[in-house]
């Protein structure tokens, strides 16, 4: 490396932990998460914005980590699948995807669960159409989506019936 690469000191809240990293400006958020922060739960399934496997929440909103420059996330709150469960207890969504077989191979699952998480925070009791609309940027190749819808419904029911969200 002869050239000096433009760098940024990135401060953000990642899964509840505040951290500072010096990163190159051209680093994608997904590479920051996987390689800098060693959080490999977030997946890369396509060459940019086509599959949704890298969906994370930035300030509560779902976003493709593969089309986001990490340096644009200054002072943001970022949530990934790796930080969703607390004290190793599965959240209602994670239990839904597990018990209703919303996850087969599991590769789309992190993105699918994060997109579903954003949905349930916005609409705690979603209709089937709400679920379909919210997950329409996330491709799954195993399930045909039938059991993914059931998984989200399971979680919504568990949450609205007052079960601890873990």
């Amino acid at each position, binding site marked *: 490396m002869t050239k000096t690469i433009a760098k940024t000191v990135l401060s953000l809240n990642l899964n509840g932990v505040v951290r500072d990293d010096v990163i190159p400006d051209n680093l994608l958020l997904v590479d920051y998460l*996987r*390689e800098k922060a*060693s*959080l*490999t*739960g*977030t*997946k*890369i*399934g*396509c*060459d940019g914005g*086509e*599959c949704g*496997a890298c969906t994370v929440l930035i300030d509560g909103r779902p976003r493709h980590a593969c089309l986001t420059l990490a340096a644009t996330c200054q002072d943001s709150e970022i949530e*990934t*699948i*790796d930080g*969703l*469960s607390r004290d190793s207890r*599965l959240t209602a*969504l*994670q*239990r839904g*995807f*597990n*018990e*209703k*077989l919303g*996850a*087969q*191979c*599991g*590769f*789309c*699952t*992190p993105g699918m*669960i994060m997109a579903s998480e954003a949905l349930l925070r916005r609409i705690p009791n979603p209709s089937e159409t709400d*679920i*379909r*609309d919210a*997950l*329409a*940027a*996330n*491709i*799954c*190749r*195993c*399930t*045909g*989506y*039938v*059991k*993914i*819808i059931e998984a989200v419904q399971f979680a919504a029911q568990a949450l609205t019936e007052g079960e601890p969200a873990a």
Partner: protein
Amino acid sequence: MNETSPAQSIGVPKPLVDGPEKTTGKAMFAADFQTAETLVGRILRSPVAHANIIAMDIAKAEALPGVHAVVTEADCSDSYGVLPIAMNEWALARGRVRYRGEPVAAVAAIDVATAQRALDLIEVTYEELPAYFTAEAARAEGAVLLHDDKPGNIERDAEFDLGDVDAELAAADLVREIDVNCAEVCQVQMEPHAAFAEYDGARERLTIRPSTQVPFYVHKMLARTMGMAEGHIRVIKPHIGGGFGSRTETLQSDLIAGLLARKARATVKVVLSREETFITHRGRPESRIKMKVGMKADGTITAVDFTVQQRGGAYSGYGIVTILYSGSMIYGLYNIVSARFQGVRVLTNTPPCGAFRGHGTVKTRFAFEGLIDDMARELGLDPFAVRRANLLVAPTMTENDLLVNSYGLDQCLDWVENASGWKSRKGKLAPNKGLGMACSHYISGASKPKHWTGEPHATIHLRVDWDASITLLTGAAEIGQGSSTVMAQCVAETLGVDMGRINVISSDSALTPKDNGSYSSRVTFMVGNASIDAAQNLKARLVEAAARKLEIPAADVECLGEVYRGGQQDQGLTFEEVVMEALSGEGTITVKGNYDTIPESWGGRKYRGAAIGGTMAFSYAAQVVEVTVDPHTAEITVDKVWVAHDCGKALNPLAVEGQVQGSVWMGMGQAMSEETAFHEGLPLAANMLDYRVPTIIESPPIEVGIIEAADPHGPFGAKEAGEGSLSGFLPALTNAVADAMGVRAAELPLTPDRLLELLEKKVREDAATSGRNRGAA
């Protein structure tokens, strides 16, 4: 203690044993492995479709600071391929490239930027040759051969002529033909191909984690390509992000990772882009099928006469097997005696095709089920009646010697007919709505393994130690289909213990017994049976120990899973106590279980390649598809699918439903939106925008009926559940569109542009007909 009873694990919906890892992001896929010093592996790919490699200069790339290894064909000891009779591929092209994107060299460097710069510094001189992107062009007179030993660019001609086709066609009341063309499709499993390879230079040992369905085949091909002793390689299968057949053979990326790691004497990770994953391909070939069927007035099929031409791509891969399946599997679903098949697998300058879910059977099934639906209409018969007129009666042997021991197609038909309300709704739907149905079947594993070594088909090890947990060691590759769960269930059920006692370790060549891998729906049947065998062997050991401790004859020991006792009044021994007794004086217990197919299932000898199709058991499926067609835009909405699948016994009803839904839905993508496309051999749709895997929006509800026509040889009666219902969707959809709009689709996928052309053609023809009628009147 009296109420103690063995835990039930079979027939109960069970979440996957590895579900929690997948839902928390903890599951480690190949690309997730990383060490501080992992090198980045990148591949240089041919920009041309067909050329001799005149020269290659890697000196500048090797000299670039940060580059640790550059590999070419010179680093490969041998060719590779999944079929022992057709190993004509090299990990890196040797002397010639045969498709655009074929790997020619690879580098390992400290970072991705350096790796890319190194690739740019490799100079390759190509002498271009004529290239052929269609089967017709490759077969044309005078075409340059892709492989010198394949005259006419034919990978394989396949044929059979059974019964008396000509006489039976002549004896039919109705003979009709269909000519269909189905586009090439790709698996597009969510995980791009990846391999993480560690080379231990001090010991000259390789450890690799490839994204594969067949760790054993990868192991063999690594040894062959790298010229290494098989015992010096360890293959560990990480979590796998789906396969659907794209990974049922060794891929170049697996081999290249190994080659780079050895040359760099370091750890190298190769992760392909989605585009590269598309180029690696191994999908379902474009197929042209011409089929003629004879039928009696009552719907009985008298004969089938058909040809299949497949555009196979540049290398053999599974090609011979694929073309043979496309013929042999005309049998086994219905009572067909006379059939004639001519198949040709063609080599072309496109990425190699492979074994996609429903291997070889899908497009033939599409042609057949569409044709007999039209014939039924012409004869005034209900589509269900035509199918019922041709049912098999099990047990039987088909004309091409396929063993059918169990057969639930009749029950599948009943279930979908009732569930869909067929009788009351068919023909009475609103305009532009339609109902269509079709049937399908699939093997539960190929009975003759590709690598015939005399070993059992499947081996399972069970280990029990002082902690009274049971470790199940299997080489079968868990790829998301739930195989580890099924094995744990089989063992738990046989022993009557809770599944929580069982830890499954899947596919680590240093630990687990060899297994051929996850393909052709072999795992539940073969490995499930081996699991039962192992558990029975373990149980015998535990019963012996209990008898010793209880001081009663072994025959008097009653096993209740968690309790072993001598009778109702006996308080008995806990599982832990039995295990301690069993270990006493002997130490850790390891037992194994095997499974082998029976020779009657090995397929026949009536024609060359007749073993293909031979299986221990067929699954059966029927489905009804309801559609609405927009007459203006020709967009098809699938409103609902009802599917019944005969899996013999649903070991895990939850997983069976998931597999069947996934199969039907994958058939939907192939039927409606998915296709590869090429511009002079460059893939136009090597991304997930232009290759259209369905989204959740257009994906329909899929209601599953589980039919259990138990197979006498299946584990608890079970047969396959993950492939058989795929192929039925394609004809069920086009039959539904025919019902709605009166047009027969002969080209797939039936995208809106193709359907609009059919609808406009029909309008023109109807106008011409009514014009003629008016003229006549």
